[in-house]
């Protein structure tokens, strides 16, 4: 049972990393990214392929993942020059799907639908199975903490103020002399880097990644974490990630009460509940459980 909770906590950590990254892009800067699953996949496959197929030391491979996320994030951000937010949503969703299609079809590189087996792990072989679970939880927790501190630092700084200005009205921000595109590229790339790192941590944890893990559903969970927690509020979405995970795991136990449901129907019912919750939250608390703090300027 302890083992179960340690593994759930690790998964909540992955959610938190992704949610913090999305909050940077959307919550703070107003750039819609529905391609979260694509960046997650890029990080996971970069690290996985470099360590398994190219023979890189695992630590180096894991550091290459955020670099790839950074590059692709900057590339996708270039699209935002001319796109309204709802069109950016469609294009980023497309980006995520194209990444998944690539991973699915190019088996020579990624092993396609069979999935890529990753046997390399950081500190592999030095710890026994139980110790390793705790070690990995600590590794993920430290990463969450670092990303949280960076995000908070950005939020409180003059830089964050510019981001909020762009979110509220990019034309006004431009008129005030801010080069909007530069900020957008920087922030989207940084978010992409965090997502890539999250993907790498995930890949070496589960040790087997396949394209079906990176369905657009992943993006929905991350969006829910941010929305339920409160967009723009870093603390809030840590809670949001916990709530979404509690819902995902909690609904598993529905099967114990509704024994007439088979696995297929149970999974359908769980996703329905998630959809309903998302609509109810947006209707009743459109700004989330912990709305963004009012910003006060203290010189």
């Amino acid at each position, binding site marked *: 049972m302890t083992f179960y909770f340690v593994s759930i906590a690790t998964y909540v950590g992955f959610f938190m990393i992704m949610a913090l990254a999305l909050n940077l892009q959307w919550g703070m800067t107003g750039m819609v990214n529905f391609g979260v699953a694509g960046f997650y996949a890029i990080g996971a496959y970069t690290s996985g392929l470099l360590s398994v197929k190219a023979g890189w030391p695992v630590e180096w491979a894991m550091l290459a993942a955020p670099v790839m996320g950074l590059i692709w994030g900057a590339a996708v951000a270039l*699209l935002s020059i*001319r796109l309204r937010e709802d*069109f950016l949503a469609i294009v980023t969703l497309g980006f995520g*799907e194209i990444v998944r299609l690539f991973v699915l079809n190019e088996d020579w590189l990624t092993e396609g639908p069979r999935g890529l087996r990753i046997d390399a792990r950081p500190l592999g072989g030095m710890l026994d199975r139980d110790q390793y679970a705790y070690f990995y939880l600590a590794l993920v927790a430290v990463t969450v903490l670092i990303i949280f501190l960076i995000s908070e630092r950005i939020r409180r700084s003059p830089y964050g103020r510019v981001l909020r200005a762009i979110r509220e009205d990019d034309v006004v921000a431009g008129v005030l002399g801010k080069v909007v595109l530069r900020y957008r590229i920087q922030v989207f790339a940084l978010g992409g880097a965090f997502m890539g790192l999250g993907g790498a941590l995930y890949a070496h944890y589960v040790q087997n990644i396949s394209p079906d893990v990176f369905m657009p559903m992943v993006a929905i969970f991350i969006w829910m974490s941010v929305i339920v927690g409160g967009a723009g509020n870093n603390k809030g979405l840590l809670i949001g990630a916990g709530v979404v995970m509690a819902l995902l795991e909690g609904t598993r136990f529905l099967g114990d009460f509704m024994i007439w449901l088979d696995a297929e*129907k149970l999974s*359908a019912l769980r996703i329905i509940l998630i959809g*309903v919750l998302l609509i109810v939250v*947006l209707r009743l608390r459109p700004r989330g459980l912990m709305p963004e703090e009012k910003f006060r300027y203290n010189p």
Partner: protein
Amino acid sequence: MGQVLINALVNAALIGPPAVAFSMLFGILRFPNFAIGGYITVGAFAVFAFNVTLGLPLVLATLLGMAVTGALVWLSDEIVFKPMREHSPITLLIVSIALTLILEQGVRLFWGADVRGFDLPLTRPMKFAGMRITVEQVWIIGLALAVASLTHAILRYTRIGKAMRATSDNFMLAQVRGINTGRVIAFTWLYCGALFGLTGTLGGLDLVIEPLLGWNLTIPIFAAAILGGIGSAYGAMLGALLVGIAEELTVLVLPSTYKVGVGFIIIALLLLLRPQGLFGEAQIKK
């Protein structure tokens, strides 16, 4: 080459009607409704229930299925979207994604994820000049043309059509001029719902009936509507034709599993070059 053209036409006929519907909804409510995937899936399964479970002929089943889907789509507006009209487009977009999850998984809850087909006699494809075309494909093309003409007639010659165009052009002005925008919106949802129901049938004829049927069509539909200049019904039809041709041409050089990717790349390139679409007029923000 002729075969490619036929396939492209069938493809276009399949995504044309829902692209028109998506475009009309966007024109009036101003957000991209991702729930179209769910609507189409529900439509396909409603027709399936009438056709296979109740044993009605397909034409009758389609009409009943269109009525059911129209009603459900209208109801989804009343329950989900109407109370949130004032929210930002992005909030509504997320809500519509949640709605499509609920609809698709609702179908999966009742029917499972098995692949199904309509109850139809098997027919041989007709052959002429070395090209093959099935009876179902002729039906798909014919119905799409009928839908295009009907939509044109409604928008052009009826009172409600004029009201729809006015509401789509300028919501506030239409309201001030005494147009009952609530009724216009309700009619639009019902009409579009019927088109999604029809797409359910057509999609079931051309592909297979499964919960992800609608989702797989969503992207080409978006591409067609955006290509045509969103909000323009005629543009959407032409957009469908271009997307249909583009998809079939790429099948010649890329594995067909990349088809969805092609739709996205068309969208991205077009939006970069011409953000308002081929026939759309540039809108002034704020």
